[in-house]
């Protein structure tokens, strides 16, 4: 029985970490954050990531990709989280996963090659304004000809994406649109088949409007997409299960990013409070602080384990994959929110300033904890999988 990364995966993590330290450290992040008018998508970084092959990690070999799994993808995204790295990496990888699973051979050939090479930015648009993730939160309708009407909100990097994978309600289903008050499982298999489809949309197409949205987390830019009869191509294999699969992958990548954020927050806090002296002693030697950080180490370690297992379970199609995803996302949410809040608190006054880096971590954790299912949704889904199945 093994529960650990392979030597190759550990080496990959090392490579990404060294690359970021060398090519995109926190000063570079700050430059992106402070450039409020900019698109938040540092082009040099994107090119370099493409050259490293890290965009093709989940692209099939036939399209020039590395043909690896989510377990490898989470290795990369965790380092991006630890470095609070800006850019549409996760969005692009997710869009690629949808096209790989549900796209036609022609769609796959057209998109996956350039996507893996970093020549193309992609993203996913899966929920409407004010809506939860899942079918009830979709506010886009497709007609029989594949034209899309409606709105999506909080879409990562829609303003720089070349293509957008859009979830839409399809004709013949009377599902209510708009705000969904009742939370639903964000990664569940949906309520039966049919009725939901994924569509490949070009940002430059007619009837597509993209408006940047102000967000607390400037390391990742968001936009609203408004569609008025916009022509799009259906991913022929897509259905409710395809959407659910996409949401699960999104949840695992977000959880991995959060695990990276959480570990970095903890490590940086330990370093800071080992050096900082108050009341004549290093702050880190005060037991109340030390014990809190110890509890956070336990929580972050559990989140790391859970992300690892969830990615593995999805790659292998394990029977408990759905459960594992909900565990990973809710645990990573908690660990990252708690660890970054402690980071602010235990840096003292400086931790609350714009000039210090703590707020990058705190804000990224807040955003990601709500992305691809917040804890409320994942825990209710978990209750359905566990409480309701005990015999």
């Amino acid at each position: 029985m093994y529960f650990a990364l392979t030597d190759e995966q550990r080496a990959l993590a090392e490579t990404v970490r060294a690359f970021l330290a060398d090519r995109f450290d926190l000063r570079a992040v700050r430059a992106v954050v402070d450039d409020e008018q900019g698109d938040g998508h540092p082009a040099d970084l994107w090119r370099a990531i493409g050259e490293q092959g890290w965009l093709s990690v989940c692209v099939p070999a036939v399209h020039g990709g590395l043909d690896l799994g989510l377990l490898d993808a989470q290795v990369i995204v965790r380092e991006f989280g630890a470095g609070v790295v800006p850019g549409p990496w996760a969005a692009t990888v997710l869009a690629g996963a949808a096209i790989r699973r549900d796209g036609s051979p022609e769609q796959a050939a057209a998109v996956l090659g350039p996507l893996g090479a970093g020549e193309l930015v992609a993203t996913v648009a899966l929920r409407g304004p004010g809506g939860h993730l899942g079918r009830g939160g979709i506010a886009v309708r497709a007609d029989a000809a594949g034209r899309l009407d409606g709105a999506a909100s909080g879409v990562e990097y829609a303003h720089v994406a070349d293509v957008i994978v859009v979830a839409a309600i399809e004709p013949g289903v009377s599902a209510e649109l708009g705000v969904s008050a009742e939370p639903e499982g964000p990664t569940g298999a949906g309520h039966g088949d049919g009725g939901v489809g994924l569509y490949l949309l070009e940002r430059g197409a007619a009837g597509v409007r993209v408006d940047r949205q102000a967000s607390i987390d400037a390391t990742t830019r968001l936009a609203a997409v408004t569609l008025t009869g916009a022509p799009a191509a259906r991913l022929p294999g897509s259905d409710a299960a395809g959407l659910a699969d996409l949401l699960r992958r999104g949840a695992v990548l977000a959880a991995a990013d959060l695990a990276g954020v959480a570990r970095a927050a903890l490590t940086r806090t330990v370093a800071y409070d080992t050096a900082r002296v108050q009341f004549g002693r290093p702050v880190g030697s005060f037991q109340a602080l030390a014990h809190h950080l110890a509890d956070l180490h336990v929580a972050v370690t559990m989140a790391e384990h859970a992300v690892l297992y969830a990615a593995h379970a999805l790659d292998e199609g394990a029977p408990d994959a759905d459960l594992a995803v909900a565990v990973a996302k809710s645990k990573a949410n908690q660990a990252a929110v708690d660890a970054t809040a402690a980071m602010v608190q235990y840096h003292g006054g400086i931790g609350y300033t714009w000039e210090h880096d703590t707020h990058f971590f705190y804000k990224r954790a807040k955003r990601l904890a709500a992305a691809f299912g917040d804890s409320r949704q994942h825990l209710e889904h978990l209750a359905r999988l566990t409480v309701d199945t005990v015999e």
Partner: protein
Amino acid sequence: MRAIHDAELVRARAPRSVNSLGLVFLAPTVMAVGTSEQRADIIGPMLRNEVIWCQGFSEPGAGSDLAALRTHGVLDGDEFVVNGQKVWTTFASRGDRMFTMVRTEPGSSRHRGLSLLLIDMHAPGVEVRPIRQMSGVSEFGEVFLTDVRVPASQCLGGVGNGWATAMLLLSFERGAAGISQYTAYQQAYDEIVRVARALGRAGDPVLRQELARRRVELECLRYQAMHVLTEVERGRDLGASSSVTKLQWSQAYQGLFETFDELLGADVALLRPTADLDLTALRQESFWTRSVTIWGGSSQVQRTIVAERVLGLPRGS
């Protein structure tokens, strides 16, 4: 227990005066330990908002550890010549005068040899640099003091007695501030409930429990404020009970905004999740709540005070 019919007073909106620091902390301290000249000089102009006061207690590297202050003043004739640096000075860029702690006995250490000086912010040698907070707003500043000349008459509570004067002043900050804190909390609570309703989530049983839990802490803060006022009226020493108020308020206020984030769900990152919902102000307040457990004596410092002075637990080494 006599009746609590003045509760309406508590519910009324507390004044959000630009001079609230002066009114809440400095004024009662001046009344208690100031000279008659100081009372005449300070109280009137403060009430008329002719003089805006700011507070300079923290220093780089000192944080919650007031005794580690290094800004020093040397008596030269009847003036102190003050050099040093303050951070986290609230309203620094808008202030006319600053109450601040200065080490006035060379070579002294810890609590001894400190004085509370009142410094003219427009005097030569005073330089202010605003500090931008994580919310993007600048409300604090750094103050650099270079050979600033402060008349010896501008020492409050006696030369070398700064520690006791500061403790008295901070007890007003930590204690009597309860009521305005309660008001701000209640306004935020109501705003957050309106957001939950706008997003269709005010009926979610899980969020309702959380909101109710926050409301419990709010009401308890109100009782604590009434308790403190009663003690003040009776002439009791507030002592460490001001630390109880600070802990109750700061932890509850911060917690309220954690519930705010939870009820936003998928929209937590967006300042305008829907067309008619602008969360900018609440979001700034939310970031601000991360600081309330740090300044004015961090929660860690307050807990130590409660443990040692209220519970009488043995001091840690």
